[in-house]
């Protein structure tokens, strides 16, 4: 068991290092850097641009810079942002907290919705609820999440029920403690709703498929022959049987939610990692891009490891050697 987890940990570490190397060296291929635009500025002399580049170490070789970057990771700084003139880590943590808040609550909410709905659909395959479910999920799947986000924003603008962007209202600091919570929650609604609407149909389909498969298996027929009512069969036996494939889906949900939230955050101006990465790409703020990509990798690798541990707890038959 311990060996299994050590191996998984090493594997995760390999991935993280590999991704850091990949992004770092790809970014070196970029023509121009953060200071390239400055050269066009008539108030900057070529010497001062060169001095700035020297100061930030941009005139050194790629390998040296990678080592320097590793060193700064060791110090917990994750490199230096040119645009914000501060270590990347301090920038990233504030943003990462907001992104995590968004994605984790969206994930929780979508599972809370998807499991009962999927059970309801799969309980009687081919029945009216099943067909309704398939129709609803396919139509939701066909709506791109960008359109979903824009549509919800349109609704918010037209009705005024929800704030249309950001995380807090102007004048947030003057609000009382309860008022602050309510303010953030109201800003939460739209991005979370978009993410949930994008994830739920996929999850519902997986839950349904799992339940249908389990319900067709012999042990369910045996249980039915023993007179266990259908409702209890579905809620207890089928759900437990379908749990294993669902848990391995957890990793998938994290990926889709992270990718989805990147776009949604920019569209809804949620102060998360998404807008940070977007601005960094536009400004060629090298280390911020690397840092953000590293954050997403870490989150994903961690999520997958948690999913593996859960899977092991539910399904002891899985070989760990």
């Amino acid at each position: 068991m311990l060996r299994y987890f050590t191996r998984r940990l090493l594997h995760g570490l390999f991935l993280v290092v590999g991704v850091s190397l990949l992004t770092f060296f790809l970014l070196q291929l970029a023509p121009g850097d953060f200071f390239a635009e400055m050269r066009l500025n008539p108030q900057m002399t070529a010497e001062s641009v060169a001095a700035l580049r020297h100061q930030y170490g941009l005139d050194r070789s790629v390998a040296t810079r990678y080592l320097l970057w590793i060193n700064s990771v060791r110090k917990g700084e994750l490199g230096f942002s040119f645009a914000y003139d501060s270590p990347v880590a301090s920038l990233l943590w504030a943003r990462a907290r907001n992104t995590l808040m968004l994605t984790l609550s969206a994930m929780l909410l979508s599972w809370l919705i998807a499991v009962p709905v999927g059970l309801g659909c799969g309980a009687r395959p081919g029945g009216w609820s099943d067909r309704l479910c398939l129709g609803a999920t396919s139509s939701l799947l066909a709506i791109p999440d960008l359109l979903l986000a824009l549509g919800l924003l349109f609704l918010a603008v037209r009705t005024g029920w929800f704030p249309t962007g950001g995380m807090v209202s102007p004048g947030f600091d003057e609000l009382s403690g309860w008022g602050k919570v309510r303010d953030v929650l109201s800003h939460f609604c739209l991005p979370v709703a978009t993410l949930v609407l994008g994830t739920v149909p996929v999850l519902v389909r997986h839950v349904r498929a799992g339940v249908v498969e389990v319900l067709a298996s012999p042990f369910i027929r045996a249980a039915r022959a023993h007179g266990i009512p259908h409702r209890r069969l579905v809620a207890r036996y089928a759900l437990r049987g379908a749990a294993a494939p669902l848990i391995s889906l957890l990793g998938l949900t994290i990926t889709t939610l992270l990718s989805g939230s990147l776009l949604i955050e920019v569209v809804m101006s949620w102060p998360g990692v998404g807008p940070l990465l977007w601005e960094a790409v536009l400004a060629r703020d090298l280390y911020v891009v690397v840092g953000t990509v590293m954050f997403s990798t870490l989150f994903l690798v961690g999520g997958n490891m948690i999913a593996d541990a859960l899977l092991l707890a539910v399904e002891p038959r899985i070989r760990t050697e």
Partner: protein
Amino acid sequence: MTGRHRIYLALGFLGALHASVLLASFLAPYDPKVQDRELPFTPPTRLHFVDVRGRFHLRPFIYTCEPSSMPAAPCVEDRTRAFPLRFFVRESSAGLEVEKANLADRGAELGVGGLKRRHWRLFGVDQQARIFLLGSDGLGRDQFSRLLHGGQVSLLAGILAAGLALGLGLMLGAVAGFYGGWVDELIMRGVELFLALPWLYLLFAVRAFLPLHLSAVQSFFLLIAVMGVVGWARPARLVRCVVLSARERDYVAAARGFGASDAYLLRRHVLPQAFGVVMTQAGILIPQFILAEVALSYLGLGVAEPVPSLGNLLAELQQYHVLASYWWMFLPGVALIPVFAGYYALANALQEGAGVVPT
């Protein structure tokens, strides 16, 4: 309906969609780049069948629209003069100084024949009026024409990127599965690396190493290259699985015994087995890449203006007043729904045909 019928139905539907965007320059009444600064954000033109005197006409007609000072207010139709819709016209609307000037230049170069090069359009109206079936954008460009041309760019980007990703995946997956050993190990580690990242982050990161300011054509092909390079991992893994089981078959061993080369074995006996997997992956990857193009272009990192794509058409909604007031600016996004529905139906039908339970 049997699985085969559903596949044909989905293919036919998608074929019709693609044909309509391919024929964009015929179906659209205007050139997508032509501006009319006098008519920004004109609401969709209404087609009339009954005139002011209550008489019914079989041929629909339109009225010109006076731009109103109030944003989003329905424009005031000038009912004094009707403009009948004409079909199969030659380049309906002049009065477009830009294009006229261009054509005059070209006409001068080519001699008089230059002006005759204007091509046929399915429908149009007389020069004094303009027909905006889906409204116009902030520069007075016809949203319907831009939607069709933008669809051309976006759908093509999806198909080309998926083709690239599948080609890479097929090649690398086949090599990994067929030869095994350290090659397999290396390629599969690469697959894990690419699958470990949320793909939109990866797309952003790869986009970051390309120059920011590019011409529209360059950015289009770079976008395709980036998406294809990012998306190869999943098909490669699936192809490898198929190849692994196929190369152990008796007929492969027999062919090898008769002295068949590796290349022949792959081409003749092993890779045809992967056809189903590749097709199903195409059904999944194409909409994903269309969405990626839309997202990147929306964020200003994809296809650049003035070439329309569904993404940069939606980008106008980043302005608050456009989002709040002009509902027809959402239509490029709505147009994606049938495309996606078609591709999902196709992928589902293909998966069922392959004996996989649709999820």
